[in-house]
């Protein structure tokens, strides 16, 4: 397993913090493995830990009463889980499920909240991240509503590739259908179309991204917009 200091320097919210703040953080966090499918929070659960993914990534999902699900945001090494703690709550609003196994930094909720007032740089970064999440959520609502499944699937595969840091993804149709809030048949057709264009290869839950720039062109504008949003918000002094 990787060291705490390597982990802190990998997560993009933590990497550039002043050394005093990194040290305060290191004193109360640990590196933990996250397994595929592991549930970090159930809606209305008390949030006991904040997580900063290193090479794992997690989906935030809305569940309806009839058990329909829809992913609304995703967090990997560029983000964190447990934003409710930053907002002063300790109840999770959404289901958070690990999608990409790997490791994350984990901090007990009370220690994380105690760090915030004494770590101004961390607080500022988290406010920027909040801004990013809010805008991504707004954009997702429109994307889900207006864009074709094929464009959304391409976007989703790119977002996943960025966080998994790998061209090889293991995803079933069923899982993709749930994430995108569409029927399985819709995913089958969209994946087939992307495969026929030579952008991905798909075989029994194994997806290999063959042509990343082609996939960017096939995705809706939301993908590049999200990337630009993150870069701009984090670069602003």
């Amino acid at each position, binding site marked *: 397993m990787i060291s705490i200091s390597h982990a802190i320097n990998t997560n993009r919210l933590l990497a550039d913090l002043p050394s005093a703040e990194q040290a305060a953080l290191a004193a109360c966090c640990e590196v933990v493995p996250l397994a595929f499918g592991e549930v970090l929070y159930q809606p209305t659960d008390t949030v006991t830990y904040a997580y900063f993914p290193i090479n794992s990534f997690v989906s935030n999902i809305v569940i309806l009463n009839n058990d329909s699900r*829809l992913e609304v945001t995703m967090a990997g090494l560029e983000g964190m889980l447990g934003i409710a703690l930053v*907002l002063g709550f300790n109840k999770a609003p*959404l289901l958070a499920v690990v999608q990409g196994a790997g490791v994350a930094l984990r901090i007990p909720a009370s220690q994380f909240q105690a760090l915030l007032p004494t770590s101004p740089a961390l607080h500022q970064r988290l*406010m920027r991240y909040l801004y990013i999440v*809010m805008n991504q959520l707004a954009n*997702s609502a*429109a994307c889900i509503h207006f864009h074709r499944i094929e464009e959304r699937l391409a976007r989703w595969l790119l977002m996943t590739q960025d966080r998994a840091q790998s061209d090889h993804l293991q995803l079933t149709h069923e899982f993709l259908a749930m994430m995108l809030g569409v029927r399985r048949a819709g995913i089958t057709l969209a994946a087939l179309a992307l495969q026929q264009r030579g952008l991905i290869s798909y075989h029994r839950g194994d997806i290999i991204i063959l042509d990343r720039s082609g996939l960017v062109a096939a995705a809706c504008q939301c993908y590049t917009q999200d990337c630009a949003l993150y870069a701009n*918000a984090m670069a*602003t002094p």
Partner: protein
Amino acid sequence: MLQTRHFQQNALLGLLPEKELEHLLPHLEEVSLTLGQSLSESGRHMSHVYFPLDAIVSLLCVMENGDSTEIAVVGHEGLVGVSQFMGGETTLTSAIVQSAGQAYRLKSHLLKREFDRAGTMQRLLLRYTQALLTQMAQTAVCNRHHSLDQQLCRWLLLSLDRLPGNELIMTQELIANMLGVRREGVTESAGKLQKAGLISYNRGHITVLDRQGLEDRVCECYAGVKNEYDRLLKYPAVTVAC
């Protein structure tokens, strides 16, 4: 005293302790917002933030081709311009007045200054943001999974909660823009609600006749959002900072 009571029409201002409200009072400017007025445009800097009193503002996400969909609604319980205290230079959403009325506006940098004092205002704004995020996530899923009839009921109820009366002045075209559908769809859905005696619709005036009837038809998304806001407003805001 009368003036203070007026400020309290906005829940966030109303929950501020007197000392913090005193910082803001000289800078708050009452403005009349008109139907369809744009308070912020995607990609532009926002010079002011707005605390609605009886006006309702719709936050929209507008796509490159001009298609738009509402992602949240803000009334007397909230603030238009949360991105300003987060340090985001611009906003990606547009804010359009969906029901005319009064609001207080404040220069964006002054909101940021109040937020950075790390007092009650900061805690209130963060809590409000949580409610707003919940509303956005719920709207996204509602747009995907629920019928237009249910979405229209949700939209009417969320508006009604932010209005002093039961009448909304609104064109079907604006509703269609909010819900991201064609006008014909709104006409059909509104027609059904009218036939069932729940609303009356006449030349841009929608009057809600049977609120309970709307609540019986609406999807779970309305209650999900409402509970989050109720929790926000019940939360004791005036706690001593530690």
